[in-house]
């Protein structure tokens, strides 16, 4: 027997969660986006990819951006990385306007972007070397980061010898090695199978727990968004605009069991409604009760 259960309002927060957010918002703002817009010129006319997008990201926050395909998520994160420019509005990093790409904003891409001609170690050392650090120091640092992502044994392997998940771990290590203020991740686990993906999520939370870094994360996967984030920015389409910023009412530290808590499901439901996932979801309560 199955029945539809009533979910609580996703805005309801337990006292712990409420105080967590209060604390979060007292921290300094790493990133401020003020009414950012982006218009692309194309042969068929102008495409407005982003319009009046404003958001703040706080120190050591884990923020996720979700939205339909083509709503401008990548455009937004590329603007933050400095790989793309705004056509209106501005972006401040620690209160200063950004002018181009820089090592203070690390980025992990959906596709594999390790340099295929460099070993894992050399890949991680890349940014350090560019910054002009001494060779020995670069190497020492790089090895520490590689160890942190659990790939010590593969330090001298070439990217083509690694699995997809391993490649992304190296990419994370490579980005973090520069000690960026914020780590930008554009669907980093999009190409991975479900199991690897779950592992990578755990890894990422683990790293985030250990390292003082702010993360802005793009995903298609609603559960992934709820599971990982403090706040979720839902980007509406045509043109890309901020639909809502949701504070995830799920307690930290996060564990996979929380996937079927009421708060989790309520948040997920809200996201579904926002981005129009049409298929209605029936929840098997017997399973839930069994979990007790």
């Amino acid at each position: 027997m199955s029945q539809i259960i009533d979910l609580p309002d996703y805005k309801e927060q337990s006292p712990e969660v409420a105080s967590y957010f209060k604390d979060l918002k007292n921290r300094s703002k790493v990133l401020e986006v003020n009414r950012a817009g982006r218009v692309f010129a194309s042969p068929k006319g102008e495409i407005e990819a982003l319009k009046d997008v404003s958001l703040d990201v706080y120190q050591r926050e884990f923020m996720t951006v979700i939205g339909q395909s083509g709503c401008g998520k990548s455009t937004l994160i590329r603007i933050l990385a400095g790989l793309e420019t705004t056509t209106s509005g501005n972006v401040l990093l620690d209160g200063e306007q950004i002018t181009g790409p820089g090592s203070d904003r690390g980025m992990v891409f959906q596709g594999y972007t390790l340099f295929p001609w460099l070993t894992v170690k050399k890949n991680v050392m890349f940014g350090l070397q560019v910054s002009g650090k001494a060779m020995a120091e670069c190497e020492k640092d790089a090895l520490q980061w590689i160890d942190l992502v659990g790939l010590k044994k593969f330090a001298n392997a070439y990217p083509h010898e690694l699995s997809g998940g391993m490649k992304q771990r190296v990419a994370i290590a490579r980005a973090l090695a520069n000690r960026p203020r914020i780590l930008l991740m554009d669907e980093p686990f999009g190409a991975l199978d479900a199991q690897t993906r779950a592992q990578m999520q755990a890894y990422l939370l683990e790293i985030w727990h250990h390292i003082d870094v702010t993360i802005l994360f793009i995903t298609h996967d609603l559960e992934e968004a709820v599971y990982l984030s403090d706040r979720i920015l839902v980007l509406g389409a045509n043109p890309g605009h901020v639909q809502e910023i949701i504070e995830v009412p799920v307690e930290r530290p996060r564990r996979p069991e929380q996937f079927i808590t009421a708060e989790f499901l309520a948040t997920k439901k809200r996201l579904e409604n926002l981005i129009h996932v049409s298929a209605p979801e029936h929840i098997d309560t017997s399973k839930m009760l069994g979990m007790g």
Partner: protein
Amino acid sequence: MGSHQPPQPWFRVGTLLSEKRSGVLMICSFLLPILIYSFVAYCPIFWGHAYELTIAARPDDKVEFGATYTQGFSMEEDEFTRFQKAIRDDNEKLTALYQQGDEADFGMSPRAARSHNKRLLREFEPVLSRNGLFDISVKEEMETKPYYQLLYGAAYDTWGEIATGKEQLQKGSLSEENREIIKKNWALLSSVSETYDSGKLYSKPIYKLIPQGNKQVARASWFPAPHQIIRRGWEDLTGKSELGDLNVPTRYLQSLKIVFFGFFVACLIGLPLALLAGTFSFFSRLIEPFTDFFRYMPAPAFSTILVVIFDIYDQPKIALVVLGTLPHLILMVANTTRMVDQPLLDAAQTLGARRGTLISKVIVPGILPHLYNDLRILLGWAWTWLVIAELIGAKSGLTEIIDTQGRRFHFDHVYPVILLIGITGFVTDQILASFRTVLFPYAASEKKGILSFAFAMVHKLFKSKKATS
């Protein structure tokens, strides 16, 4: 290993064959053309027969047989039969004359008869030298007259031995018919002297030897048989042939120099330009449109101009190779440079890399495996310009051999040179291709060439030996 697997089909869409099978096919791909060529070359249906004279003769009928027939002369079958018949007729006429007794008119003075007889002795030379009874190489160290004295002596003695049945000639070097003729001749000759003496030579004409020849497939001159090509090629390569100053090894080095120097100069000019054009849109727009236009003007069209500018020796030839290769090099490498993964450039920028480091640490290493491939292909193009380049100004290199020998219809000299050019280009390319996997282990490997296949086989053998020891 795999003993229970069902046999894989040989034909299957979109599936690669096993290493072993592709190896077999690769060998076949070379073997097949060689076999077809050999088949055509050796199969008489395509060509008919010919006789290469081993014993020449001179018929009295100078109208029908006007040429100078010497050893090695090649005749078609029916011509050869008529040729033999003409000599037999001559001999019959002579028999008739001898039967007339003393009043017979041989139509020549005793002096003319003696020189006629000497010539017949001389025509026996191929049989002598083939049987090791006479060494023609002494000709170079001797005056003409004593040399011929020696030759006549040797022939005379051998005829004597043949007549008395003491000689031991190799089988097939003398027909029974000719043996009988020699016996008749010896009866005449020995009536004057048992040994050769120019003063005591029989003064009436003796019988002519019937022409003999090796039966052969009569190929066209432009279709030499594989064994002829190989033999001639080997002789040419080792300097044992009559090519004289057209020495193949030195010519080969000349040609190599033109190709590689031309290619090197093209790289020197082209690579920086191409790299700039591939990296910066500015240079791309500035350089590429004209280059694109320029490559449609065939490089050989500039040959006379190049000769005026650079004189007739190596420079204009090198210039032509450069001219032929450079535009393609610029366009191809610029394109390759543009193909560097944009995400890699993005990633490098978020790691703090700026213009200079971006070029030196991302673009260049990123395109290197592709660049290597491009240059391999371009080197192949440089080879294709070689022959035209060497024809301009003073002919040089291997092309001069092809040109002069080809004009004389000595295609057995031409084919080895063409093959040499082909093999050199191919082997260079294959060696470079097999280095690619060593130099760029991370780059996706392309289809395997015959050489890298051979390397792999040797490697496997070596490995299995190591494992067993």
